[in-house]
C-alpha cells in the first residue's frame, strides 16, 4: 500500500473510529438521537424546489410535508448539524493540509467522466436515502450503534451491493 498525497497525515483508523464513536455517544447523551446527513439534503432539495415551483412542491405527497403549517424546512436539528459538518470539515482540511481544488478520480478516467459518474452516483444515493430513511451516517452509525434492526439490514445491503458493484465499475477506480 503506497502513501498518496491525499491520504497523508490521516489519523490511525481505530483512533478516528473511537473519536467518531465518542462524538456519536455524546450526541445520544444530549439529544437521544444520533448524527445524520441525508435529512439535510432532502430539506435542501425541498427548499430549492419550492423556490422554483412552490405549488408543485407543496402539493407533492413527499416534499409537501416539510411546508405544512407554514414551517421553514431549514429550521431543523439535522440541517444545523450538517452546517457544523461543513465548518468542522473545513477547519480539518485546512489544518491538515489536505485542502486542494481537484477532482478525486481513478487513473484511467478523465475528469469529465469522473464528474458524470459522481453526478449519477449522487442521484442514485439521493433516491436510495429516501427509501432507506437515512444514509451511512443516520442509519449506519446511529442506527447501528443502537442496534436498530432496519439499520443493520440497511448496512448489510449497502456493503454487499457495494463490494459486488465495485467489480463492475472497477475501471473508474483502479
Amino acid at each position, binding site marked *: *500500500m503506497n502513501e*498518496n498525497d*491525499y491520504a497523508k497525515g490521516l489519523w490511525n483508523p481505530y483512533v*478516528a*473510529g473511537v473519536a*467518531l*464513536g*465518542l*462524538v456519536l*455517544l455524546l*450526541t*445520544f*447523551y444530549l*439529544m*437521544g*438521537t444520533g*448524527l445524520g446527513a*441525508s435529512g439535510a*439534503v432532502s430539506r*435542501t*432539495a425541498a427548499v430549492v424546489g419550492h423556490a422554483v415551483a412552490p405549488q408543485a412542491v407543496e402539493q407533492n*405527497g*413527499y416534499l409537501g410535508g416539510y411546508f405544512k403549517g407554514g414551517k421553514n424546512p431549514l429550521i431543523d436539528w439535522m440541517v444545523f*448539524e*450538517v452546517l*457544523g*459538518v*461543513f*465548518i*468542522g470539515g*473545513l477547519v*480539518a*482540511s485546512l489544518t*491538515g493540509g*489536505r*485542502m486542494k481544488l481537484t477532482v*478525486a478520480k481513478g487513473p484511467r478516467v478523465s475528469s469529465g467522466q469522473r464528474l458524470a459518474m459522481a453526478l449519477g*452516483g*449522487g442521484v*442514485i*444515493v*439521493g433516491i*436510495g436515502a*429516501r*427509501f*432507506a430513511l437515512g*444514509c451511512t*451516517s*443516520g442509519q449506519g452509525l*446511529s442506527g447501528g450503534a443502537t*442496534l*436498530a434492526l*432496519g439499520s443493520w*439490514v440497511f*448496512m448489510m445491503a*449497502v456493503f*454487499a*451491493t457495494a463490494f459486488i*458493484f465495485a467489480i463492475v465499475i472497477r475501471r473508474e*477506480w483502479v
Partner: protein
Amino acid sequence: MTGPLYLFDVFGFTTSLVVAVAMGFLFGFVLERAGFGDARTIVSIFYFRDMRVLRVMFSAIVTAMVGLIALSRLGLFDYSVLVEYSLLPTYLWPQLVGGVLIGMGFTLGGYCPGTSVVAITSGRVDALVFLAGMVAGVWVFAAGFPLWGAFYKSSDLGRITLWQVFGLPLEVVAAAMALMALAAFFLAGLGEKWAPYDKAGK
C-alpha cells in the same frame, strides 16, 4: 444528570440547534481526519487497498454502542427512553432497497451524504457534483412518490432492535457485535494482503 438530556427537557429547541452545530463540527472534523474527504480513500475499501472505512465505522459503532450501555449502567442514560421514543424505526423492505441503491451510488459516486460534505470542504469538485446529484435524486423520488409511496411506508415494524428480534439481552447482542467487529478487522487485514486488483492489474 441522566440523559438523553433533550428528551428530559433539560434544554429547549433553540439550545438544541447550538448543540447541533457543535456536534456537527466535531463530526465533520473527525470525518476529515479519518480520510473521508477524498473519494479515493473511501472507495479503496472495495478494492482491498486501504480498508479504513470498515475500521473507522465499525470501531465508531462499537464505541458508541458500548458507551451507551456503560452510561446506562452508571445511571447516566435512560436506555428505555431511547428504545421507546427515539430509536430509528424499521421499514424492512424499503430499507433493503434503499441500501442496495446507496451501495451502488456510493461506489459509483465515491461518497455518501456525510462524506461528500467534508470532501466539498476539502476542495473536491466531484463531491460538489455528487451533492447536486443527491438533490436531484430527492426530486426524482418526490416526483415518483405517487408510484412508490405505498412501498415506502410498507413493512413498518416500528422501533425494533436486534436483541428484541433474537430475544436476547442487549449486552449479549452487543458482545456479539463487538466480536464481529474484531473478526471484520482481522479479515480487513487479510484483504489488504490479498489486494487482488493490484496484483492482477499489473
